[in-house]
Every structure is written in structure tokens, then in C-alpha cells.
């Protein structure tokens, strides 16, 4: 920022637009659109992801023969409108992603703070648990947990949190180790400020930036994890809509109605791509040196 101020002699034409060059505008727009539509979804009268009858089953989308504007994307095997399920699924996916990442970040940060700040055996113990969690492949751990908990939206959020907290814990611990030796922390300790206060007031604000970057990068992972679980049948379950679940249902009809497969596939791919691009941009913007966050 200081550089551009010093350089303000001779403002070039179009420099205002140039600042937007690196911003992933399309991705941000996509995410904004998904958020808006998802929030508005239940309020719109024509959106009905749940009811359907076999009489209206497997109708083609509007651009094929036999399609109609009543069912823009066609219907699935139970007669439910695909567009409605797409919107409802997006809502549930976003819900899981946001609450999952939030819970995961809070848990991981708390553990990382304690481990990094207090050190010694507390650190060793917490880090062994963190390493153990990271040693198990994401979906394997997720499935193991889902076996005990069973399907359901709340359970998916729990599973996602339990699987991804370790990334935050490891990151925060590393950052806390850097901050721990700084003068203001030592000064606070000498001044007799209680440890908890030091942690929340002095240490935490200074490690916040990498946490936010990691959180934005984890959104994509969380969406993939949640939809994979739903795809396998151990995540969001019927009659709720979820894109992974829609894809799983559509597999039986791939040859008959390929659009049932393609539509949730494209939706998932685009959403995760958009959130990854935004996450990359945030990382580059906040701290280009955070190379170790590249997964």
C-alpha cells in the first residue's frame, strides 16, 4: 500500500481497473450468486425439492424433447424437480461448509493456541493427537466416524469438524511459536496479566490472518468431504437434497438421463473451483509468503 502511495505521481489511465486484475471476479460473483439463491430458496414459491410423484418421474429438461418450463432441469426418479433440489442442495452444502469450517477453525485454533503457548508436555500430547488425526486419510477417518454417528446433516458437520480441525491446530501452533517470543508477549507476562488474557488479547489477533486464509482454503475441502459422504450414503440423507446425493441417485440413470448426472457434477465442480480460487487469492493478498498453506 505504501508503494502505491509513493508512486501516485502520474496516475495512469485505467489504473483503477487494473487493481481489480488479480481479483477473481467471476469466482466471487459465483459465490455471491449461490449464497443469494440459497438464502432466498425456501422463500420462493416455485421451489419444491421434496414433493414429487412417480407420474412426473424422469422428465427431461427444457432443452430436450418432451421438456417443459414447469421443470426447467427435468425431474429425478422420484418426480422431484431437479432445479429445486439443486437450489436446496446448494443451501445445505453451504450451510455445512460454513458451520463445518467455523467449528473446525474454532476447535483447531483453541488447541493450537494452547499447544503452542504452553509448550512442553501439553504441546507434545496435543501434537501427537493432531499428528494421529492427520495421519489418517480424510475420507477414511470421516467414514469411520460416520459409521458410529450415522447419516444426517448435523452428523456431517460433526464429522467434517472432527476431520479438519487438525489442519488449523498445526497451523496455529506454528504461528503461536513465532509470536510467543515477541516483546509484547513477554512484556505482558512480566506485567502479570493472566495467561488466558494474554492468549486472547495479544497472541490470537496476531495469528488471525493465516487462520482466515486457511479457513477460506478449507471451504472447498469441506464441500468435497461432505458431498463425498452424501454420495456414499452416509451423509445428508433423503429427502434432503444435496449435490453429492443427487449424483449418487443419478448414477442408476446415467444412460437414460445423463443430465441428471451432469448438472450436480457441474454445480459441485464450479462451487469448489470458485471457493478454491477465492481462497488462493486471499492467501496471495494477505501473505504471499504463506507458501506452506498450498495443499
Amino acid at each position, binding site marked *: 500500500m505504501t508503494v502505491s502511495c509513493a508512486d501516485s505521481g502520474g496516475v495512469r489511465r485505467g489504473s483503477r481497473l487494473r487493481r481489480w486484475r488479480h481479483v477473481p471476479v467471476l469466482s466471487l460473483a459465483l459465490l455471491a450468486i449461490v449464497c443469494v439463491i440459497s438464502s432466498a430458496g425456501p422463500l420462493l414459491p416455485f421451489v419444491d425439492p421434496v414433493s414429487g410423484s412417480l407420474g412426473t418421474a424422469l422428465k427431461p429438461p427444457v432443452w430436450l424433447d418432451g421438456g417443459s418450463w414447469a421443470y426447467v432441469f427435468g425431474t429425478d426418479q422420484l418426480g422431484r424437480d431437479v432445479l429445486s433440489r439443486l437450489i436446496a442442495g446448494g443451501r445445505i452444502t453451504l450451510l455445512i461448509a460454513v458451520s463445518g469450517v467455523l467449528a473446525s477453525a474454532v476447535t483447531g485454533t483453541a488447541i493450537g493456541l494452547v499447544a503452542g503457548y504452553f509448550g512442553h508436555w501439553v504441546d507434545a500430547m496435543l501434537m*501427537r*493427537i493432531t*499428528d*494421529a*488425526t492427520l*495421519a*489418517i*486419510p*480424510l*475420507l*477414511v*477417518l470421516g*467414514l*469411520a*466416524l*460416520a*459409521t*458410529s*454417528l*450415522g447419516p444426517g446433516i448435523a452428523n456431517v458437520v460433526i464429522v467434517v469438524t472432527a476431520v479438519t480441525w487438525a489442519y488449523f491446530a498445526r497451523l496455529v501452533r506454528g504461528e503461536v511459536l513465532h509470536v510467543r517470543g515477541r516483546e509484547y508477549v513477554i512484556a505482558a507476562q512480566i506485567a502479570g496479566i493472566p495467561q488466558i488474557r494474554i492468549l486472547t488479547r495479544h497472541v490470537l489477533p496476531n495469528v488471525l490472518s493465516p487462520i482466515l486464509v486457511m479457513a477460506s482454503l478449507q471451504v*472447498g475441502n469441506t*464441500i*468435497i468431504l461432505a*458431498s*463425498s459422504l452424501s*454420495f*456414499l*450414503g*452416509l451423509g445428508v440423507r433423503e429427502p434432503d437434497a444435496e449435490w*453429492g446425493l443427487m*449424483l449418487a441417485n*443419478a*448414477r442408476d440413470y*446415467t*444412460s437414460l438421463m*445423463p443430465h441428471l*448426472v*451432469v448438472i450436480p*457434477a457441474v454445480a*459441485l*465442480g464450479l462451487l*469448489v*473451483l470458485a471457493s*478454491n*480460487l477465492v481462497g*488462493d487469492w486471499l492467501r496471495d493478498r494477505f501473505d504471499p509468503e504463506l507458501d506452506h498453506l*498450498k*495443499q
Partner: protein
Amino acid sequence: MTKYVVVRILQALCSLVVVAILVFFLSRLTGDPVSLMLSPEASALRQQLGLDQPIFLQLADFLWSTLRGDLGTSFRFNRPVTALLLARFPYSLLLAGAAISIAIAIGLPVGVLAARNPGGAVDRIARTVAVSGQSIPTFVVGVVLVLVFAIQLRVLPTGGTGSVAHLVLPALTLGWFSAAAITRMARSSTLEALGSNYVTVARAKGLRDRTILFRHALPNALTSIMSLASLQFVMLASGAVITEAIFDWPGIGLLMVQGAFARDYALVQGVVILAAILTISVNLLTDLLYMRIDPRIRLGRSDA
């Protein structure tokens, strides 16, 4: 340096024990397995399975038998878990091997070529491949591939084993994600190698670009690429759940899904422990190997 090695090995063993403990409690989160199978009053079965003993005795028992290689019996398949794992594991290895080969075959050339002309056409393709590969979920890739090749074009089978053709689609699906990671790594480490001072010297000497690339830059870039590849390999071998589920590939991933559906705790535990053992040991080996072949790390350790 030996001290570091010993410490790392102890850490790895510690992590394994912690994994076993975690897994043990994972299965008992929502009540014991018997009440799920029969009813909470089924005390005879409970006694037989040893589930009426205090929890710590059960844990000790579990750890001890795991150490001896006895992971219990799967009640879905009615076979010992260890035998099941050993029977299915080679399939996972085969799939992972094929996938990583595809990933390296795509990722390495694309990444290196991209680094050669940063900002050029290949570079843009490389970055697109990398980002999309890591963004598109595996099951999306798998289902779309099945749609295109198996159903529309009818050139490849939709699942199962038996011929090389059966291996193609699963390997592509699995390798897709790794290809992205390897492309990224190949590009960045080749860029780094090309920017180092020995390459500048080589250029000053007047060597041809190709010689510089293959004789000086690549060997140095390869170490980090290969270590990433080995880590990816173990990830693929132990965690290919979705791909194996889609293509009915009889590896440990499919075993995991079947166990999860049947609430077969012994089986699920077994797969998790196997996956953890694989990941931890390959991580350890890679770290130690890296230490051996890169003198900078070895020497740096002594004053760390």
C-alpha cells in the same frame, strides 16, 4: 543426526498408538456394538465379545491384539479382518500404482515445460490443470468418466476387475487429483531450480538450454517431486474410497465402505489402522531418505 532419527521413529510409533486409541474410542462413541446388533439386554453375547469388562481393560486388550496382528473378526464377511485386509490390499496397491504413473506421466512433463516458459501457453494450461484437478471432487470425475467412456462411447467397462481395460477409468479418476498436485510441484521446483545460481553459471558458460534443463535443473527439482509422488502414492493406496466404491474395485477402500454400511466396527477399525500405518511409515521413510540424500538438510540439523 542419529538422535534426530531415533526421535522421529519414536514420534511415529507414538502417533500409531494414538491412532489405535482414537480408533478404539471412535467405534464406541454411540454405545457398544452389541446393543446395535441385538438389544441392550443381550448380556451373553456381550460377555462373549468381552464388552462387559471395564473400558480400559478392553482398550489394553485391543492394543495388545493389534500389536500381535489380530484385528478381530468382521461379522459382515465372517472372516478375520487381517486376512481380509491382506487379501484386498494388493488391489489397492495396483490401482494406486497405475494412478500415480498416470499422474507423473501427465504432471512431470507439463510442469517442467510450464516452468521453462513461465507465462506461456503451457504454463497457463498447467495452472488450469492444477487448479481444476484439485477442485473437482473425485466422485464427480469418476461418474463423468463413466458417463463419457463407458456409456456414451462404450469403450471401457463400468467396473470390476479382470483386464487392463478395467484399470483405466479408476486409475484416471484417482490419478486426476495427484496429477494436479504433481504438476504444481513440478512447476514450482523446476522454476526454483532454474533460478538458482548454478544454472546462471551454466548459462554464462554458454550451455544449451536443454542441457541446462536436463543435467542441472531437473535432478535437483526431482527430489522434491519424487517425495511428493511417494506421499501421494500412499494417500492413494490407503484412501481411494470413492474411486473403489464407484468402480467396484476390490481394494481396502471398498472394504471401508462396505464395513461402514454394515456398521462392522472391527473392519472399519482395521482399515483405519492400516491406512495410518501406511501413511506414518511412508512419511517417516520419506523424511529420513530426504535427510540422507540432501546433505544440506543433514548438515543443517546439527546446528538446528
